[in-house]
């Protein structure tokens, strides 16, 4: 097989997959920009200061059926007098409602988001984050991907703009791209999790022993090419060829 041909195919497909994800990040980035445009200084923000943010979230969440949750999650004490807060909306059967959680940190039920990866990774400087899919027993839908981007005010991290994406819907769109290809392909997340594949060779949700790398053998498959999705979430596309059908990359 030609490694160069496989690499070119991988770049093309990874770009097509990215196009499915990018609009979600652009929406989150619009929420982030609306937050950042708040006139009052962070630390003194009130719910009413963030009125435009609320309007923006409620408007954007209705734009795509895969969006089941969307919001702004401030860093501690960015909201005046509130250690934890959440401006988060959920959509269920076409109805949008605000999510209210318990932030009492002494309680066993506490939802301490500052420890969640979708919060810590943007806080640590990653521009586009994608966690999951996971079973969100604390959410409005059961199997979701949580995506997030950092919100910066004059370079300072003040929280994340995020979205919950219904995984079944995301899977359908990603698979729509993959299933047209004549070779086996799999998307794997940074935590080695199988996101979606056009072959039953991989079990969705399973964590692979290692992140796929070009030329590496995995079972009876060889990864002919591995390409990060340009969207920048740490997801990679791997194309596999079997020993026999190794030259189908054109």
């Amino acid at each position: 097989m030609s490694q160069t041909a496989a690499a070119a195919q991988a770049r093309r497909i990874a770009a097509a997959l990215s196009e499915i994800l990018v609009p979600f990040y652009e929406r989150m980035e619009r929420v982030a920009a609306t937050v950042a445009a708040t006139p009052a200084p962070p630390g003194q923000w009130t719910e009413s200061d963030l009125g435009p943010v609320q309007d923006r979230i409620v408007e954007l969440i209705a734009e795509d059926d895969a969006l089941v949750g969307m919001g702004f999650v401030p860093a501690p004490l960015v909201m005046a007098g509130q250690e934890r807060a959440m401006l988060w909306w959920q959509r269920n059967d076409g109805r949008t409602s605000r999510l209210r959680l318990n932030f009492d940190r002494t309680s066993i039920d506490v939802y301490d988001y500052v420890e969640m990866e979708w919060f810590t990774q943007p806080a640590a400087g990653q521009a586009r984050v994608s966690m999951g899919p996971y079973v969100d027993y604390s959410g409005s839908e059961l199997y979701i991907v949580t995506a997030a981007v950092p919100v910066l005010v004059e370079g300072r991290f003040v929280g994340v703009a995020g979205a919950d994406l219904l995984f079944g819907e995301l899977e359908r769109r990603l698979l729509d791209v993959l299933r047209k290809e004549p070779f086996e392909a799999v998307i794997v997340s940074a935590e080695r999790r199988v996101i979606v594949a056009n072959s039953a060779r991989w079990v969705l949700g399973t964590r692979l022993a290692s992140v796929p790398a070009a030329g590496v053998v995995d079972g009876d498959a060889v990864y002919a090419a591995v390409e990060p999705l340009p969207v920048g979430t740490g997801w990679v596309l791997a194309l596999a060829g079997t020993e026999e059908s190794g030259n189908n990359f054109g």
Partner: protein
Amino acid sequence: MSGLTPLISPSAVGGRADEVVQRISEAIHLGLLGDGEKLPSEVELAAQFGVAPMTMREALAALRAEGLVETKRGRSGGSFVRRPTSPPVEPVRQRLAAMTISGLRDLVDEHQGVAGQAARLAAERASASNARRLFALTEQLGGAPTPGDRVRADCRFHIEVAVASQSARLTRREVGLQAEVSGMLWLLPESAVDVAVHVEEHHAIAAAVLAEDGAEARRLAENHVAGVLRLLTAAHLRLIDEGAEA
């Protein structure tokens, strides 16, 4: 990212208000609904449970009467969860006394299937944060001051294992099983649970998940559930003895 409302209606309720009341009070006592959490609107809840809005209104009124839900009027109003410090014990005692030993064994057979498979898959699929949470919940059980806190910490551990398995169906099953088992185990002195042993077993399961050792995680989870059967059977026998003497 939110409250635990989806899992309180895993299987359809029969359309009766008392069944809805039962589901929601279980969810509150198991800690699936957080203290102070705002419930969805009456209309949304009715849709979620598949009951008529009037039935939902009746159910909410009953929950208010039991003090489990508080309704506030006005702009920031709505129905909020109010969890009592201790769940009611007597109905749980009556339930365990009324069970048969074969029924208990069957309940635990099912639980072994669900918990064992969940643990195996969790070992293959858990994220780093799932694993961290399992250790945190294990520690929480060790330090839980009241029986009510133990119910919640134990139940959340098992649900977290199921969540880590990536299976929404196993998670729903685990929630339903916890609702049946957890109260009998932790609220009744007759069950005589040794918290330290329980904590040790949870710790071992968490460690097997972290080590990505599926076979070991399954074996440990099955043994753990088998231990629960022994405790509940013994407690049931004590209860029917007392009943016969009374």
